[in-house]
């Protein structure tokens, strides 16, 4: 299964490589992707192994609580459509920093935006690499953890350096198809086992799960105390974090025009929403079919929930319980494809921040040739791939949960507010964007370090100084206020010029006049 997927994707990479000549081809697939294709690719880019294996696992251990993540990870999408997608397409070229810095000073704003993008990309990469290593190693014990990560690293470097955005897009489309198909089969299998009655599914789960009816009433993780601010902060982080992920935003540069950009969000949202409803059924199915089954458990006399291979395995074992070794192989290949597709998108987004923003626009001040820029981004892909492999190996034994918190916090508190203010608020100036942006970046990192996940669990320093896992509830308003105040008090001549440029920017963002056009071929 793995081999079939790998050889198909390498074939696509070869085809894409022969069709990738310009920078627009490399970063934006020649802007020739249709709305439906991009919608699938968006779904493929977004539905990471964390959401497939992760939500199923949250539901498996905590029941109802998992639904909050399903909903939270979806509600960012309509907001992306209403406020961001078409404006991104009309204003930008290759990166979201193009848009944030559209009428502001290129150097400082791009540097800040690229740092925000890179933090998200690198930490997200670590999470994916660790997940890939654990998954492959559990399924194919002959393959060591290190070797699994090296294979993933080598494959994505090959896809992205040779095939660029075209290969990345098609890997994501195939993966989305496989994942949606696989999850549908699993959910159908579960429902067939429960004679297509939700009532039966849920009551069976309640009977089997050691916490019984508590799993239908869990509004916080089972065992945790209810905390309103934490719940709201989690909601804010999930919603606005989605709208600030650089690899997701980058997808909007690949479509032909604003119309296609909008359609792609519609398709993407429907696929993702459908998928999240399925993961919820899969999680409950795992309670019924996997829990209490000695085949999958570490030690049935101690706990009927603890699985061999760690907490992320419920969905994988469910496939075995439903369809034996063959279906297990299929779902494992799907999970593997998922990781490859997400990692490819991330790597390309990180490479574009390094080459297009930092190298071409900050260091060379826009004087780099297209050839040089693409060359630098290919080197960046190789560099990022190697970094991901090394950090993935270094973080093998670490709890990677806080990594998700960090990436979504930076995305929700830096990338998203600066992008939206740049597009909608005439008063934003370079000074405001830069000071506000760094407030978000530094604030996320500091609050996370002194928060419960890192301070207490990772560093073991006792009770956390900042008592919340997700800082967004405090940090997002702080960033908005800082950006606002620093912008309106900016009375420099350059700030006036930046405000004056807003009207022209708005015409372009609304009408697409002067927007980048699709390549001719």
């Amino acid at each position: 299964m793995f081999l079939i997927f790998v050889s198909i994707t390498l074939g696509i990479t070869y085809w894409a490589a022969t069709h990738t000549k310009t920078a627009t081809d490399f970063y934006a697939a020649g802007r020739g992707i249709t709305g439906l294709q991009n919608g699938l690719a968006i779904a493929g880019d977004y539905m990471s192994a964390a959401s497939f294996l992760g939500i199923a696992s949250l539901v498996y251990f905590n029941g109802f609580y998992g639904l909050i993540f399903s909903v939270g990870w979806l509600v960012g999408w309509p907001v992306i459509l209403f406020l961001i997608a078409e404006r991104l397409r009309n204003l930008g070229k290759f990166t979201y920093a193009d848009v944030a810095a559209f009428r502001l000073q290129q150097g400082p704003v791009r540097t800040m935006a690229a740092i925000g993008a890179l933090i998200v990309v690198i930490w997200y990469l670590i999470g994916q690499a660790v997940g890939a290593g654990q998954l492959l190693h559990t399924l194919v014990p002959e393959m060591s953890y290190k070797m699994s990560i090296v294979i993933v690293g080598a494959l994505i470097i090959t896809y992205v350096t040779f095939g660029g955005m075209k290969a990345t897009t098609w890997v994501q489309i195939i993966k989305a198809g496989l994942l949606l198909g696989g999850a549908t089969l699993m959910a159908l299998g579960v429902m067939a086992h429960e004679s297509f009655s939700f009532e039966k599914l849920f009551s069976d789960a309640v009977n089997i799960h050691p916490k019984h009816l508590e799993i239908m009433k869990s509004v916080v993780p089972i065992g945790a105390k209810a905390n309103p601010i934490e719940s709201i902060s989690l909601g804010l982080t999930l919603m606005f974090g989605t709208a600030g992920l650089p690899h997701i935003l980058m997808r909007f540069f690949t479509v032909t025009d604003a119309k296609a950009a909008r359609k792609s969000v519609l398709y993407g949202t429907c696929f993702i929403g459908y998928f999240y409803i399925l993961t919820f059924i899969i999680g409950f199915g795992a309670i019924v079919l996997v829990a209490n089954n000695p085949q999958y458990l570490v030690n049935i006399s101690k706990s009927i929930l603890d699985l061999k291979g760690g907490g992320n395995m419920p969905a994988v074992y469910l496939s075995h319980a439903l369809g034996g070794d063959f279906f297990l192989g299929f779902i494992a290949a799907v999970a593997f494809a998922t990781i490859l597709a997400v990692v490819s998108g991330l790597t390309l987004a990180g490479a574009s921040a390094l080459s297009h923003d930092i190298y071409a626009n900050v260091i060379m001040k826009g004087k780099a040739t297209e050839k040089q820029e693409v060359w630098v981004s290919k080197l960046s892909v190789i560099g990022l791939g190697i970094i991901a492999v090394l950090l993935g190996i270094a973080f093998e034994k670490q709890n990677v949960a806080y990594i998700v918190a960090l990436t979504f916090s930076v995305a929700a508190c830096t990338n998203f507010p600066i992008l939206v203010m740049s597009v909608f608020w005439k008063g934003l100036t370079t000074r405001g964007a830069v000071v506000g942006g760094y407030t978000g970046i530094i604030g996320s990192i500091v609050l996370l370090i002194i928060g419960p996940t890192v301070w207490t669990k990772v560093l073991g320093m006792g009770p956390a100084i900042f008592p919340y896992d997700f800082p967004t509830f405090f940090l997002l308003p702080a960033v908005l206020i800082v950006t606002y105040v620093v912008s309106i008090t900016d009375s420099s001549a350059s700030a006036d010029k930046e405000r004056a440029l807003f009207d022209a920017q708005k015409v372009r963002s609304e009408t697409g006049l002067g927007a980048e056009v699709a390549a001719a071929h």
Partner: protein
Amino acid sequence: MSELISNKIQKNPKYLKLANRRGRLAWTLSAIVCVIFYGFILMIAFAPGVLTAPISAGSVIPVGLPLGVAVIVVCCLLTGFYVYESNQVFDPMFEEIVKEASK
């Protein structure tokens, strides 16, 4: 050239009205999504009893479950509504304005 056109469009009252209308639609829909989602989150935070009550006597399914699924479905519907409005109604009108200014 495109700067000249852009300047003309900026002064066109039809453009301003249209851009305001679409802006209002976008922000209103965003607000609706936020109200729905944060309504859900606030219920989780302050009134968990409402969400965890069973949908009917004797059932184990809590009210929050169909509600959560409904949030997802409503999001998809609102997304579809905006795409339809923007692609079928607003875009042709904006195109008209650009064409007029390009003459």
